[in-house]
């Protein structure tokens, strides 16, 4: 991976409809995607992630702003003039062509010599391990195989950027896990920049070099999976990626007073009224009445096998979830209604100002 920029979006706006009823699918989005990285656009449906992908592919034009590919402005270029290929959510394989003809389609349209088309097609089919099915019609393939054909077809013309629009969403869980590993391998082997769209946070965390979290047409945060998980910039990111506890608090000097009265240390913030967030696995239980532990009551216990979710209520009613590793005996000695104390791992507390 180098530091050069593959794709840049500059203040991109995409509005659908006109006048008062116009909806901003993208609202001033700017992002730099580096050459050779696996970049994921993550967000709930309707957040604008697919729209951004379609703008990069050229299927739609932005209402304002610019899209640059390796520094060149491609905002108004039609899709067939962009060295960018797409793996569609529905795969969009050509039903009247064989697997090999599908894979060779792009090169054929580019007017490459027959020998080169055949050689590249064979190489691509080998890359996705489908050599044996070259002569089949695509309708005779399973979902996973169709997925591989779609990948080989998009990779065959050696695009500068590969766009993947929720390509795994139609597969069952087991196949999805396999394809996640497969995609990562293909990306490393080809060195092509991947821009991957998904609403699945686990997929994003496991596969990406960097993630762009989107919501309501805006890019909320861009960073490595660890950055995003450990240092979410706002409540949306903290709740969309993983689970979080949110505790309203008021700043008192360099510490924060929770609504239940407890005073805890956390990084400095400008605002007086903030929300503290802590992941459930960073909450520790202590004996009731333990000094500097926050008093709480167990309201529910949910057993997940490897761990147990312990739902707690603070004295002001705020709910906190603690994820506790299940003990070897299978019984942590906790009961619903039992008074306990709780502590947060100090460096795991994040301060959200919105």
């Amino acid at each position, binding site marked *: 991976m180098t530091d050069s920029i593959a794709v840049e979006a500059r203040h991109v706006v995409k509005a659908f409809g006109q006048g008062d009823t116009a909806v901003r699918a993208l609202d001033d989005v700017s992002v730099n995607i580096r050459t050779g990285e696996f970049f994921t656009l993550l967000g709930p449906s309707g957040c604008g992630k697919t729209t951004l992908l379609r703008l990069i592919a050229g299927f739609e034009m932005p209402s304002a702003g610019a899209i640059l590919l390796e520094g060149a402005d491609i905002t108004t270029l039609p899709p067939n003039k962009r060295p960018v290929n797409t793996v569609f959510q529905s795969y969009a394989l050509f039903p009247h062509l064989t697997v090999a003809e599908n894979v060779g389609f792009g090169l054929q349209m580019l007017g490459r010599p027959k020998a080169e088309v055949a050689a590249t097609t064979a190489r691509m089919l080998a890359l996705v391990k489908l050599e044996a099915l070259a002569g089949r019609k695509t*309708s005779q393939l399973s979902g996973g195989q169709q997925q591989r054909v779609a990948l080989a077809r*998009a990779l065959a013309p050696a695009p500068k950027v590969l766009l993947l629009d929720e390509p795994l969403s139609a597969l069952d869980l087991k196949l999805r896990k396999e394809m996640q590993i497969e995609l990562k391998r293909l990306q490393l082997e080809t060195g092509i920049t991947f821009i991957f769209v998904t609403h699945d946070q686990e997929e994003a965390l496991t596969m990406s070099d960097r993630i762009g979290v989107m919501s309501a047409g805006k890019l909320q945060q861009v960073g490595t999976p660890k950055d995003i998980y450990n240092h979410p910039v706002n409540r949306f990111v903290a709740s969309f990626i993983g689970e979080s506890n949110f505790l309203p608090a008021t700043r008192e000097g360099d510490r924060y007073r929770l609504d239940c009265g407890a005073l805890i240390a956390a990084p400095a913030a400008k605002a007086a009224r903030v929300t503290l967030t802590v992941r459930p696995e960073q909450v520790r239980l202590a004996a009731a009445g333990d000094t500097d532990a926050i008093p709480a009551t167990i309201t529910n216990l949910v057993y997940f096998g490897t761990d147990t979710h312990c739902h707690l209520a603070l004295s002001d009613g705020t709910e906190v979830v603690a994820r506790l590793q299940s003990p070897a005996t299978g019984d942590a000695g906790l009961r619903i209604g039992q008074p306990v104390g709780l502590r947060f791992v100090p460096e795991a507390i994040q301060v959200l100002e919105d």
Partner: protein
Amino acid sequence: MANKGFVISRLPGFNPIAGLVFAGLYLPILILVVYSFNAGRSVASWEGFSLQWYAVAWENDAVKDATIRSLYLAASAAVISTVLATLAALGTTRRKAFGGQTFIYVMINQPLMVPEIVSAVALLIFFAMIKQATGYAGMGYLIAAHSAFCIPFAYLPIRARLEGMDMTLETAAADLYASTWQAFRFVTLPLLLPGIFAGMMLAFVTSLDDVVITVFVKSAGQDTLPTYMLGQIRRQVTAEINAISTVLLALTVLLLTLFFVLTRKKDE
């Protein structure tokens, strides 16, 4: 017994009514076909099996002439109307909805709704004016008239096929460096072909059995098979007519069967 809900075939009288309707639809045709093999002259009393009327029709130069003209006319009209209908179908489905879309749709299908006799009279007068001005009296008038009223028959199956097509395929073609023309040539057209053939067949069959417009538009000596048969029946009725009708029926059934095979949804 468990109540299986409303089943129309269990209503009283379902079977007799269905039987009566099918008899009404197919008995006359069956009788026509049977009497085409009659050994006698009559179309009403059976005198034994014979293929003589097929032989008579085959030897009749007027029948041969009319058959060739009918096939030529139907083929020309089918090709012309299918090309126009394909363009119309592409124009009305491959673009964003526009004002007046319904109006255009109605206009394309106008021949299905305007009484044929009105079109026939209108064409008679219109073509008479052109004839007077140019002196041309060839097959062009019939071809033009048939092409026009065949358009909706070709248009409907093509449009249905286009609407059922996944638009993402064309987007994918563009993404894979196909120009607009290449995307049409290598993706849309091959996928559309069954619809185009179906439309062409329907247009062909429609042209083949047209009487009203043909009678009004044709010049002297331009009898098609249906107008020839109409003329014959006025003079004398022989089983030759049955034989010709049976062949025409066989041809139509064959083409319509092909049409259904082509438009059937493939369960791939």
